[in-house]
């Protein structure tokens, strides 16, 4: 890695923009309304899910549909470890635990399925969220006798900053991972897995570890957002939508570059907010229609719509090579 990479224009412009946005975010609770803080927290959540998904599925090409499962584990971890009454652990500890438990699950799932063809990975991860939900429902019914849990109240600003911290940690991880030799290894796996294996890359291990890392952030995000939702039951925590939204947002925003998923997620999250407020009864249906319309008419995502803007922000790689998946 040579220094000139950091001072070239391609790097400086996005870096400066990022810095400006970062400062705006960190100071948000000072100048922004409560509504804004909550909205941005929600948007950050989607951005984290999308970028984490992209961290693994982007370069390797393995479509993970387990995001909802990892996210839900984090949410549920908070529900168990941060009750409204009784012994509680410090918030940050719970957030980390939520992340770690998700990572461990991801490691197991990855070790089992990432040795096989992509379709097995996709279908296995697809059912995970429903599986965990049903097991937890059974557990709540038969073992603990509870029906849903209440999570302790946390101040909105604290929630916001925790989310922001997770986001920043994720972006740093994403950035350095992509630039490191493991990032190169992952890209080569996505390009030609057999060749990568023959050049000395322990392909399965690289995939599994990256998958586990991506799951950590999903779990951590779930853990903190649970304090916003306050009432958690398996239906609320484990919702299949959270498996597909990150995929859609990433594809919509463009996977090849680091800012793509961020933009895609921000747009979709804001759209969801708008629809939720304007059409509270029908918003899910409208959202679904928007999703389908987006896939049908913009299969190449935003990259097709706003090419020049995206090109300025892009770090490298043409639209063609990273179109859609």
């Amino acid at each position, binding site marked *: 890695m040579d220094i000139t990479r950091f001072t070239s224009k391609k790097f400086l412009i996005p870096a400066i923009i990022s810095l400006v946005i970062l400062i705006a975010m960190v100071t948000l609770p000072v100048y922004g309304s409560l509504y804004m803080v909550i909205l941005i927290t929600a948007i950050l959540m989607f951005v984290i899910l999308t970028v984490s998904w992209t961290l693994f599925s982007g370069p390797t*090409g393995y*479509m993970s549909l387990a995001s909802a499962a990892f996210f839900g584990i984090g949410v549920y971890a908070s529900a168990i470890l941060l009750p409204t009454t009784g012994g509680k652990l410090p918030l940050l500890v719970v957030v980390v635990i939520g992340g770690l438990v998700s990572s461990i699950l991801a490691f197991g799932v990855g070790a*089992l*399925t990432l040795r*096989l*063809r992509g*379709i*097995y990975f*996709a*279908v*296995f991860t*697809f*059912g995970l969220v*429903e*599986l965990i939900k*049903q*097991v937890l*429902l*059974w557990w709540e*019914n038969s073992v603990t006798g509870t029906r849903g849990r209440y999570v302790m109240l946390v101040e909105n600003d604290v929630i916001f900053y925790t989310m922001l911290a997770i986001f920043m940690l994720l972006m740093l991880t994403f950035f350095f991972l992509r630039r490191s030799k493991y990032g190169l290894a992952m890209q080569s796996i996505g390009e030609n897995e057999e060749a990568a294996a023959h050049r000395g890359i322990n392909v399965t291990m690289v995939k599994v570890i990256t998958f586990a890392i991506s799951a950590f952030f999903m779990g951590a995000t779930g853990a903190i957002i649970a304090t916003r939702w306050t009432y958690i039951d398996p239906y609320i925590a484990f919702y*299949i*939508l959270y498996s*597909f939204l990150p*995929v*859609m947002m990433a*594809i919509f925003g463009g996977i090849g570059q680091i800012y793509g998923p961020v933009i895609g997620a921000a747009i979709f999250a804001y759209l969801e907010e708008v629809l939720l407020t304007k059409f509270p009864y*029908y918003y*899910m*249906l409208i*959202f*679904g*229609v928007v*999703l*389908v319309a987006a*896939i*049908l008419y913009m*299969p190449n995502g935003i990259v097709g719509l706003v090419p020049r803007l995206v090109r300025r922000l892009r770090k490298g790689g043409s639209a063609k090579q990273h*179109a*859609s*998946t």
Partner: protein
Amino acid sequence: MPQGIITFLDLAIGGLLLGGIYALLAMGLSLQYGVARVFNVSHGEFIMLGAFGTFTLYTVFGINPLVCLAIVGPLTFIIGFLLHKTMFTRLRLLAPNADVYAANSMLATFGLMFIIQNIALLAWGANYRAYNYLNFGVDLWGAIFTANRLVILGFAIAIGVAFYIFLARSRIGKAIRASAQDPTTAGLMGVNINLLLAICFGLGAVMAGLAGTLMSMRIPLTPTMGLNYTIIAIIVIVLGGLGSIPGSFIGGFILGIIGTIVTYLEPSLSLAAYYFIFMLLLLIKPTGIFGK
């Protein structure tokens, strides 16, 4: 008749019944994934539609659920066929390669799942609905079995076998199998691929719709019931071997029997049991029973 044997027969019939339903579901999904190459995440929603459709037809219009089979079947076919002709054909022609099509079509089916579920929620509400049909007992060799179970079992197997014969013997069936093997050559030999893939997708939807109609006689319905069945159908087609219709048939029965036993021992852990088998399968022979 001794209680043990009654329990055994009970489980056996229950297992075959559930197995028959699973087999229909899986064969439908197998057709959609294996031939039309769409990983249809909304498959379960067609079950739900078939079930709720039958519910409404029976409770509102008094139409016999078995007669509903003849209504639900063509309706779901038309819906599936049209969906494919409009949405998926467009996606297929726009996609630069097969992988992009696979991903986009899957995402589209997810959007579909979302839309169908929410329409159902608006139409029927979130509460569980159910109706009674053929709920009386039938005396077989001294043991009592609910009539509708026997009827469902019979119809499930009949539909499954009919479907299989259709695939094996009819002209369309042959065209389908040819396209599954080699779409390009099939196209060159005069098969209208666009039409055929839409037909396959429609047929897949029919299997789900009919399964839904049959199931609606026995279980309570809710708009969110579909996802569970989609996942089960997926596990069955992996168990049977991706792309193998006979595999889906047999795999369905295997899972159905296991599911019935597990439900008998510990209700609501059946999906966990299926996933356990799924895990074993991926560890030992991912390609499934009839997979290559």
